[in-house]
C-alpha cells in the first residue's frame, strides 16, 4: 500500500513535470524537494499508522478480554458488580467478544468457586451460627412466653391486690367515719354532761337558798 502510494505520487509528479514550462531544472528541483518532503511525510505517517495499529490491536485485545470476562461473569447467574462487567458489556455491545477464552472460563470458574464458597459458608454459618441461634431463639421465645405468662399472672395478682386495697380503703373510710361519729357522740355526751352538771349545780344552789326557809 505504501508502494502504490509512492508510485502514484511519482506518476503524478511526472505528469506534472511533462505539462510544465521550459524552466525545467528549477522546476525539477522544486518537485524533487517536494517529493522528498512528501516521502518523509509518508514515512512519518506510515510510522504513525504502525504505532496506532499496535495501540489499536492492544486495545482490541483488552476489549476482547473484557468481553470474555463479562460473558463469564454473566454466565448462568450475573453476580459480579457493574464496576467489573461494565467495560465488557460495552465491548460486547460494540460487537466484540463471543469467544470462550481463558478470561471467560476464569470468570466462570471464579464465579462457581465463589458460589460454592458462599454456599459452603452459608451452610457452615447455618450450622455454626444460625442453628444455635435458632435454638437460643426458641429457648428465648419459650422464656419470653414464660415471662409473659408470669407478667399476666402478676397483673392478675396486682388486680386482686388492688381490689383488696380498695376494699381496705373503703373499710378504713368507714372506720374513720364511725370514729368521727363516735367523737361527735362523745362531744355531745360531754356537752350533755356539762349541762347536767350545770343543772345539778343550779339545783344545789336553789336548795341551798331554800334552806333559809
Amino acid at each position, binding site marked *: 500500500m505504501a508502494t502504490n502510494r509512492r508510485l502514484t505520487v511519482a506518476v503524478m509528479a511526472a505528469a506534472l513535470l511533462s505539462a510544465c514550462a521550459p524552466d525545467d531544472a528549477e522546476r525539477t528541483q522544486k518537485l524533487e524537494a517536494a517529493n522528498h518532503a512528501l516521502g518523509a511525510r509518508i514515512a512519518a505517517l506510515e510510522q504513525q499508522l504502525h504505532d496506532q495499529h499496535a495501540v489499536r490491536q492492544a486495545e482490541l485485545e483488552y476489549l476482547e478480554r473484557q468481553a470474555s470476562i463479562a460473558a463469564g461473569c454473566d454466565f448462568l447467574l450475573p453476580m459480579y458488580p457493574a464496576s467489573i462487567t461494565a467495560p465488557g458489556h460495552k465491548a460486547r455491545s460494540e460487537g466484540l467478544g463471543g469467544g470462550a477464552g481463558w478470561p471467560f472460563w476464569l470468570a466462570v470458574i471464579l464465579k462457581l468457586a465463589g458460589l460454592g464458597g458462599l454456599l459452603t459458608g452459608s451452610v457452615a454459618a447455618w450450622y455454626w451460627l444460625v442453628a444455635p441461634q435458632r435454638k437460643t431463639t426458641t429457648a428465648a421465645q419459650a422464656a419470653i412466653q414464660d415471662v409473659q405468662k408470669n407478667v399476666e399472672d402478676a397483673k392478675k395478682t396486682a388486680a386482686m391486690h388492688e381490689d383488696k386495697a380498695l376494699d381496705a380503703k373503703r373499710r378504713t373510710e368507714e372506720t374513720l367515719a364511725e370514729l368521727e361519729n363516735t367523737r361527735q357522740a362523745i362531744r355531745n355526751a360531754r356537752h350533755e354532761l356539762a349541762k347536767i352538771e350545770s*343543772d345539778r*349545780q*343550779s*339545783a344545789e*344552789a*336553789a*336548795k*341551798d*337558798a*331554800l*334552806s*333559809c*326557809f
Partner: protein
Amino acid sequence: MARRDDLRNAREKSLSGRSPTAAGRDKTKQALDWVYRWDWAAASTLDSLSGAQRRGLSARLIKHGLLKATRTECGCAVKGVPQAILTLTKLGVTEIERWREALLPYDLDPYRVRQDKIRHDQLAQSATAAALSAGRISSFSTEKELAEKSLNGLKQPDVVWQLPNGQRMGIEVELSAKWERDLDQFVLSCLKAIEKGADGRARLDMIAIVTDSPAIAKRYKAAFEPGATVGLWAKDARGRWSKNNKIKVSDWVKDKMQWRLIAD
C-alpha cells in the same frame, strides 16, 4: 380581852371602812328601802338585815319618825306572825324616795295590810333576809316590784330570788290549799313563768313552792307532774268562770320545779 377583840373585829367588819355615821345612814336606808319594797316588815327582819347583834335599828327609826309600828290582830298567838308590823311614815317615804332610782306606789295606811297574809309574807321576808345575809342569793324582787314592771297583769310570784349563778327563782309560799280554778290558774301561771317565749327566754329559770303542809306539797307535786291535766278557765257570756279547755304538763317542767317543806 378576847371578848373585846372580838367586838372590835366585828365592829370593823360591820363598818367595812366606813365612818360610824355613814354606816348608820346606810343601815337606815337599807331598812327603809326594805319596808318600801315589801310594804311592811317585822322589827326582827329589819334588825337581821343590819347584822346587828342587838335589836335597836327598828326602835331608832320609829323614834325618828321614819317608821311606825302597828299591832297585828293575832299578835304572838300564831307562830310566825309578828306582834307588830312596821310601815313607813310620810317622812319615811320621802326619805327613801330621795335615794331610790325606781319609785313604787306606797300606801301609808297600815290597816290596808291584809292580816291573813302577814304570816305568808313574813315567811317570804325572813327567808329572803336570811338568804341575802348568808350570800345564798345576790338580790331579790318583791311581788310589788314585779307587778309594777309587768304590763299584762300577769300573776307574779311572792318573791323572785336571783341566785349567785345568775338564775332567777320564783318563790311561791303556799300555806293554804287551792282548788279547782284557783289551782289550775296557779299551775298555769307557774308554767307560763318558766316556759320559753318567742325570744327563746323564760321569765324565770325555776319555781320553788314552799309550804308547811305535807298534804299541800303532795297535791301540788301531783298537779305539776308531767302528763297532769291543767284546766283552762275563761268567763262565759254571763261572766261566770267555766273550764273550756285543758292542757297537759310537759316533761321538761319537772327539771324547773323545786320543793321545800318547812318543818313546823
